[in-house]
C-alpha cells in the first residue's frame, strides 16, 4: 500500500479540540481549515487555523452537524482529509461514508467498524465472541416482558435495563427486585423510543460500586495493534467524566496486561483501524467487563499522551496516511503520572447547570508539568448552543502524589471570571482523602460532594466578604480611592517602608 501524504485537513469541530488538532497538524507541516458557526466567529480555533469558513447559523444541526456544508467546504478549500475530533459527527458512520465518497480521507475508523460498535448489543456479541468479558446479561434486544423477567431472574437482581442505541443515561433503569421490573421495562422502552428512535432494550447485571477504566488503543492498516495503558475515569457527574488519571491507582501490571490484551483482541476482531478506546467497568473484586468502545479520540486522551510521550493526533494522521505504527508493544513504556481536570462552564453550587456569559479575566495556570488545552480566551462569549467544556487542565508528575499536588496548585492558580466553572469542584475532588487514597468509584460525586463542602475557612469567608464589598463599592463608582481602585487602611503600606 502506497502511503498518501495529507497536505491539508478540515477540522470538523470547534473549541479546545479543534485547536488541539490544529496544533499537531501544524507541527507536521499540514495546513488546517477551520469551520465556524456565527457565535464562534471570534473563537481561538478560527483565529489560529490557516483558513476558516463560515457555516452560517448557530444550532448544531445547521452547523457542526451539517454533513453537506462541511463536505462542500472541504472540497472548495482543496482539503485531502477531515478530522472529526470528538462529539458532533465523530461517531457518525454516514459522515465517514460521505467523506470517503467525496474522495477525502477520514481520520478515524471505517464506517463498517463504527457501525459494528455502534449498537450496544451487537458490540457485546462481538466482544463475547472475541473472549472479552462482558457484563452478564443479553447480547440481543429483548422480545418482551416475559423474556426480560426470565433473564433478570437467571442473572439475579439488581439489574440494569439499557437502550440498545442509548447513551448518557437515557433509556436506562436500575431494577432492584422483580416487582419493579414491569414498569421499569416499559419506561425504559418508551424513553429509548423518544430519545433514540428505537425501543430496543437489553439487560445487564448491575454492578454495585464499579470503577470506569478504559484502554487506549492504536491500530494501523497493516494489522498492527498496540495498547497504551489505561485511564481511570471514575469521577463523574451526570454520567459525564470530570477528572481522569493515568495510570489508575488500582491496576496491577498483571491486570493491566490482561485488560490491554482483551482490548487489542476486541479491536482486531472488528477490523478496527486508527485510535480508539475500549471502556471497561471494574468490579470491587477487580474483575473487569467490556462496557463499550469509543471509535474516536477521547476528551481525556492527553493523560495518556503525557505518560507515554506520544502525540495521539499525530499518530491518527500517520495511520490515516497508511503508515505503520512507529512503536511495538514492547516499546510502549509509561513514565510518571498524569491527571486531567475538565474545566466546564457550569455552576457547581447549582447542580452543575451550564453557565453562560463573557469571559472577563483569564489567567490559566502555568509552569513545569502543566498542559492546558483551551478553546477560549479573554473576551470569549460562552453561549448555550454547544457543550460547556472550556478547556482541559492536565498535569504531569513523577508519581501520583506529585501530580495531585501539582493539580491542586494549578487549580488554585487558574483565574477566570465572567462565567462559573468547575474549578472549585475539581479542587474539592483533588483534595478529598478518598481521591488521594485512590479509593473511589463511579459514585464518588453522589457519595461525597455537596455544594456546602466548597465553602472553606473563616478567614477565606472574611476575605471574600471584603472582596465583594470592595467591588460593590467600586461598581457604584464613588470616592477618590475607589477611582484609583486601591484602598488601604492605617498607613499599612507606609508602615512597612518605615520599619
Amino acid at each position, binding site marked *: 500500500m502506497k502511503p498518501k501524504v495529507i497536505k491539508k485537513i478540515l477540522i470538523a469541530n470547534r473549541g479546545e479540540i479543534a485547536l488541539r488538532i490544529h496544533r499537531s497538524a501544524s507541527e507536521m507541516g499540514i495546513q488546517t481549515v477551520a469551520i465556524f458557526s456565527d457565535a464562534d466567529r471570534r473563537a481561538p480555533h478560527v483565529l489560529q487555523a490557516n483558513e476558516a469558513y463560515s457555516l452560517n447559523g448557530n444550532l448544531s444541526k445547521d452547523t457542526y452537524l451539517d454533513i453537506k456544508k462541511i463536505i462542500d467546504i472541504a472540497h472548495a478549500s482543496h482539503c485531502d482529509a477531515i478530522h472529526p475530533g470528538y462529539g458532533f459527527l465523530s461517531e457518525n458512520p454516514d459522515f465517514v461514508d460521505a467523506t470517503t465518497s467525496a474522495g477525502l480521507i477520514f481520520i478515524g475508523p471505517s464506517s463498517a467498524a463504527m457501525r459494528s460498535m455502534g449498537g450496544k448489543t451487537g458490540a457485546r456479541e462481538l466482544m463475547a465472541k472475541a473472549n472479552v468479558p462482558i457484563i452478564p446479561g443479553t447480547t440481543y434486544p429483548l422480545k418482551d416482558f416475559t423474556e426480560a423477567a426470565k433473564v433478570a431472574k437467571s442473572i439475579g437482581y439488581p439489574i440494569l435495563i439499557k437502550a440498545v442505541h442509548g447513551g448518557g443515561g437515557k433509556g436506562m433503569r436500575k431494577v432492584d427486585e422483580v416487582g419493579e421490573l414491569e414498569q421499569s421495562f416499559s419506561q425504559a422502552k418508551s424513553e429509548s423510543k423518544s430519545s433514540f428512535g428505537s425501543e430496543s432494550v437489553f439487560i445487564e447485571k448491575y454492578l454495585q460500586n464499579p470503577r470506569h477504566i478504559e484502554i487506549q488503543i492504536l491500530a494501523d492498516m497493516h494489522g498492527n495493534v498496540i495498547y497504551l495503558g489505561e485511564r481511570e475515569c471514575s469521577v463523574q457527574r451526570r454520567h459525564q467524566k470530570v477528572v481522569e488519571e493515568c495510570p489508575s491507582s488500582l491496576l496491577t501490571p498483571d491486570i493491566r496486561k490482561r485488560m490491554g490484551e482483551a482490548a487489542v483482541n476486541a479491536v482486531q476482531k472488528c477490523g478496527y483501524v486508527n485510535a480508539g478506546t475500549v471502556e471497561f467497568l471494574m468490579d470491587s473484586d477487580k474483575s473487569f467487563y467490556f462496557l463499550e468502545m469509543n471509535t474516536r479520540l477521547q476528551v481525556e486522551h492527553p493523560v495518556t499522551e503525557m505518560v507515554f510521550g506520544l502525540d495521539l493526533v499525530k499518530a491518527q494522521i500517520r495511520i490515516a496516511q497508511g503508515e505503520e505504527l512507529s512503536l511495538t508493544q514492547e516499546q510502549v513504556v509509561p513514565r510518571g503520572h498524569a491527571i486531567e481536570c475538565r474545566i466546564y462552564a457550569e455552576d457547581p453550587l447549582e447542580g452543575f447547570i451550564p453557565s453562560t456569559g463573557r469571559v472577563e479575566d483569564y489567567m490559566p495556570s502555568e509552569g513545569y508539568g502543566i498542559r492546558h488545552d483551551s478553546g477560549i480566551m479573554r473576551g470569549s462569549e460562552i453561549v448555550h448552543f454547544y457543550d460547556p467544556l472550556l478547556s482541559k487542565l492536565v498535569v504531569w508528575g513523577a508519581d501520583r502524589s506529585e501530580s495531585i499536588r501539582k493539580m491542586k496548585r494549578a487549580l488554585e492558580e487558574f483565574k477566570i471570571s465572567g462565567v462559573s466553572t468547575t474549578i472549585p469542584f475539581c479542587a474539592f475532588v483533588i483534595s478529598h482523602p478518598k481521591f488521594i487514597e485512590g479509593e473511589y468509584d463511579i459514585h464518588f460525586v453522589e457519595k461525597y460532594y455537596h455544594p456546602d463542602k466548597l465553602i472553606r475557612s473563616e478567614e477565606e469567608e472574611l476575605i471574600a466578604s471584603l472582596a465583594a*464589598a470592595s467591588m460593590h463599592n467600586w461598581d457604584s463608582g464613588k470616592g477618590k480611592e475607589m477611582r484609583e481602585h486601591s484602598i488601604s487602611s492605617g498607613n499599612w503600606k507606609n508602615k512597612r517602608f518605615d520599619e
Partner: protein
Amino acid sequence: MSVATIISTIGTRKFHWRFDDDGTVSLAGEKIPVEVTKISPNGVSILFKGKSYFVMVTKNDLNYDIIINGNFIRVSTEDSTKQLASKVLGGTRRTAIDTEVRSPMPGMVVRCEVQEGTKVKPGDGLLILEAMKMENEIRANTGGVIKRMLVKERQVVEKGELLMTIA
C-alpha cells in the same frame, strides 16, 4: 466626605464593611489593617495581615461570586449608604409619578409587611422575598403611601415583576 457602608452576607454570616475617604477600612466599627487593589476587571488583590490573597470577583445578579484559593464563595452585598442617601432625598424631592417597586430576583413572596394604604418612609421593609433558599427584605427607596399592592403571600414572582407602587 464620602463614606460607604456595605453589608456582605455569606449564608448566615453578615459582615459590616465601612470604607472611609482616607482609605480606612473598618469591619463592624473596628479598623482593619488591609490593602485592597483591583488588578483586572474582576481580579482583586488583598493584603491582609501580611497574607496575599488574589481573588476573582464576578457579579452574578445581586450576588458576587468569589473564587479564593480555588474555593467558591457566593456573597450577597447591600449598600446601606444608599438608604441614608435616599432618606435625605425622599424628604426633599417628590415626583408626580408613582414609584414602582419591582422584584430584583425571581423568588417567592414569603411575607408582606405592608398593605394598600400603609404609610412608609425610605428604608422601611415592604416584603420578604425568598430566593435560592435565602430570605431577602425588599425595602422602600422613597417615602409615601402604598397605592397598589400587586402580590400576595406565597406568590411566585419573576425578576423585574411589579410588586407594588408607592405614591
